């Protein structure tokens, strides 16, 4: 019987087995029961793995319930008030800004480029006209 059960082992483990041999093995109630138990064992091992890795990868939820909202709001308000008060106490008037002495540099016209003498003088004359105007 043991060799027939080994045929079932090979069959459930994806090995190529002789068709007649597996038929013979499964015609016996003990063979069928063995196959079912082998499947159940496999499933149990795999569930076992799932449970184990779950316990590892999900670190025991530190607190299942989140903090109540009023507590969060109180903590935020408290920290803001504390920061404001600390700021008020430790604040110093800003020292007057001392302006550094300034130096004025007057740019002198450069003599490197002499201005040429005028060759023609155009004189413009403006006369008030009664005919012109925008109104």
């Amino acid at each position: 019987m043991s060799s027939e059960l080994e045929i079932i082992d090979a069959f459930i483990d994806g090995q190529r087995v002789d068709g007649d041999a597996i038929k013979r093995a499964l015609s016996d109630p003990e063979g069928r029961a063995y196959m079912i138990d082998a499947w159940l064992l496999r499933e149990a091992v795999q569930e076992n793995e799932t449970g184990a890795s779950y316990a590892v990868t999900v670190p025991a939820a530190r607190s299942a319930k989140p903090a109540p909202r009023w507590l969060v709001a109180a903590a935020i308000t408290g920290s803001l008030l504390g920061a404001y008060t600390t700021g008020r106490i430790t604040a110093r008037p800003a020292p007057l800004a001392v302006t550094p002495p300034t130096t004025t540099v007057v740019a002198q016209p450069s003599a490197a480029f002499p201005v040429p003498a005028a060759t023609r003088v155009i004189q413009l004359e403006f006369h008030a006209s009664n005919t012109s105007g925008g109104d």
Partner: protein
Amino acid sequence: MTDVERFCAAHHDGVFRYLRRVVGAAESARDLTQEVFLRVSRAGVPEANDIGQRAWLFRIARNLALNHLRDGRRRPPTVTFGSAAVPATQELAVALSHAIDALPDLDRDVFLLRETAGLSYEEIAAASELPLESVRSRLHRARQALRATLGHSLALREQRGVRCLPAGTRDGDDR
């Protein structure tokens, strides 16, 4: 992604699951898994077919696990379970852990290489340096022993129905 990175990504979970069951503690299994892939990245994946590469990888994992256990860092007696498992399942899971721990070393190793890592008989034979026939008989013996120990729990479990699962996958992967 390099070949080594692809190889590591493909087998990371299987190696961790195997080591997790062999050494017991998840933290140690995680360290050992890192060590396995550190060695893989140093040595490079050997030129071999897929069976040869997986066998080579699990031989490294197995040797590291055996050294770890030999160094006196003993396995914890039981595995702790998260709240994901329902109570009825937990009972079987704890009993299963004890039953696997009680198996002879080589039988346990062959069984875990098959059921947690999903190695084929040829890969198990190469990884654990055993003849193929020995793998078959040890696997059968381990199943028979577990069946004898867990008979009642398995009968209860059978009432929930049976699923046909491939070895070496996590429950839920195929849902």
